[in-house]
C-alpha cells in the first residue's frame, strides 16, 4: 500500500461521499426557488446560522473537493488519446475527464460569483435576488444561463457516471450483468437530477 494507491482511493470515495451527497443536497435546495425569494433566502441562510457552518463546509466540501480536483488534474494528463477505439465506455471515460475539467472551472466561477463576490460587495444573504438578476440581466443573462446549464449538466454527468466507475473501482459491481445494472441506475440518477434541477431553474428563467 503506497500513497499513490491511497490518494486515488480517497479521491474516488470523496467523489461520492461527501462531494456527491453535497451535490444532491445543493441541487435539492434549488427547488426552493419555486417558493419565492423570502423562503429561498431563509432556507439558504438558515444553514449559515449554525456556528459550525463554515467548518462544516471546509471539512465536508472544500477539502474533499480540493483533493478530488488535484487528483483529477493529475490523472487527466497521464494517458494516451486513442480515437480508433470507438467504444461507448471509452467515450464515457473521456467525457468523465472533460466534464471534470469543465466542472472545476465552473465551480471556481460559481464560488466567485455566488459567494466571494456578494461577500465583498456586502450583498450576502439575498441569494434569490442575486441569482435571478444574474439570469435576467439583459446583457449578460444569456451567458450566465448557458454557463449554469453546462455546469449543471457537467456536474450531474460527472456524478452519475462516477457512481458507475466507483462501483467498478471498489469491486461493488463485479460481473458484466451487475455492471450493466449499475449503469442503468446511473442513467436514472442522471435523468432524475437533470429534470429536478432544470425544473428548479425554471422558476427564475
Amino acid at each position, binding site marked *: 500500500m503506497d500513497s499513490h494507491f491511497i490518494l*486515488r482511493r480517497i479521491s474516488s470515495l470523496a467523489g461520492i461521499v461527501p462531494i456527491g451527497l453535497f451535490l444532491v443536497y445543493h441541487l435539492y435546495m434549488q427547488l426552493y426557488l419555486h417558493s419565492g425569494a423570502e423562503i429561498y433566502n431563509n432556507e439558504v441562510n438558515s444553514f449559515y446560522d449554525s456556528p459550525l457552518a463554515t467548518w462544516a463546509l471546509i471539512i465536508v466540501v472544500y477539502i474533499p473537493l480540493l483533493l478530488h480536483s488535484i487528483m483529477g488534474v493529475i490523472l487527466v494528463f497521464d494517458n494516451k488519446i*486513442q480515437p480508433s477505439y470507438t467504444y461507448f*465506455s471509452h467515450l464515457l*471515460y473521456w467525457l468523465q475527464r472533460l466534464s471534470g475539467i469543465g466542472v472545476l472551472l465552473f465551480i471556481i466561477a460559481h464560488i466567485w460569483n455566488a459567494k466571494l463576490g456578494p461577500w465583498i460587495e456586502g450583498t450576502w444573504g439575498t441569494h434569490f435576488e442575486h441569482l435571478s438578476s444574474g439570469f435576467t440581466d439583459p446583457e449578460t443573462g444569456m451567458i450566465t444561463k448557458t454557463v449554469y446549464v453546462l455546469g449543471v449538466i457537467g456536474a450531474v454527468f460527472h456524478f452519475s457516471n462516477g457512481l458507475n466507475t466507483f462501483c467498478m473501482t471498489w469491486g461493488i459491481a*463485479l460481473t*458484466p450483468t451487475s455492471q450493466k445494472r449499475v449503469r442503468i441506475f446511473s442513467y436514472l440518477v442522471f435523468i432524475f437530477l437533470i429534470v429536478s434541477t432544470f425544473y428548479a431553474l425554471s422558476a427564475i428563467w
Partner: protein
Amino acid sequence: MLDTLTFKIKRQNNAESSPYWENFVIQYIPNSNVISCLMDIQTNPVNSKGEKVAPVVWQSNCLEEVCGSCTMVINGKVHQACSALIDKLEKPIILEPMSKFPVIRDLIVDRSRMFDALKKVQAWVSADGYHDLGPGDSQSQSVQEVAYKLSECMTCGCCVEACPQYTKDNNFLGAAAINQARLFNIHQKGNDITEQRLDTLMQEGGISDCGNAQNCVEVCPKSIPLTESIAEIGRQVSGKLWRNIFKA
C-alpha cells in the same frame, strides 16, 4: 473483383531509428490473412515505387491465435495478424507495430514489460523444490469454470495497447497481469501468496491506475472478462485496505 491489394506499413529499421511508411502492392488471394500477405511481401520485397527493399519483418508462431506473438495494429485496431482475414478488412490495409512497446524492427515489438508485470504480481503457483509434493489438491467445478476462461490469456498485448491508461511514460501493470493475479488468487495452491499479489497491486502501477475505460475487454481476442477481473481485484484490495486500517 479485386486483383491487387495495397498494404501501407509503418516500418522502422532498428530500435533507435525513426519510423517511416512504405506501401506494397501484392496479388490478391481469396481467404488470405495478414500473415500470408506479409509472407508474399517477404518473397518479393518490392515497394509500390518498384524499389527492392529489405523485407518487412514480423513475429509469428502458432498461426491459430493462441500464442499472441503476431499482435499488431491493423487498420488502427490491435489484433493478431494471423486471424485478421483480408476479406473482412478495409482496404488499403494499414499495418503498424503496437504503440505501447519499444519497436525492435518493423512490426516486431518488445513485450518484456508485460512479462515483467506477470513476475511482479507473481502469476504462478509457488511450489519450490524438487522433492515429491504428492498429488495436488483437486479444483472444484465452480472454480474451474471461472479459471479456465481467465487462463486463456496469451499475453498478446491487445488489452494494454487499447488501454488509454497504459502509456510508455507510466508503469501501469495492465489488464492482463491483473487478470492473472485473479486467476492465481482463486487457485487452490496459488492462493498461498494472495496477500503478496495484492500488496503489489496496491502500489503505483497497480489496480488504482485503471481508469475504467473498458477498452481491454472490448479488444481481448480471447473474450476474457477483464473488467470483471479488474472489479474482482478491486474488491480484494478494498478488503485488504479495510483489514490494513482496522485490523493491523
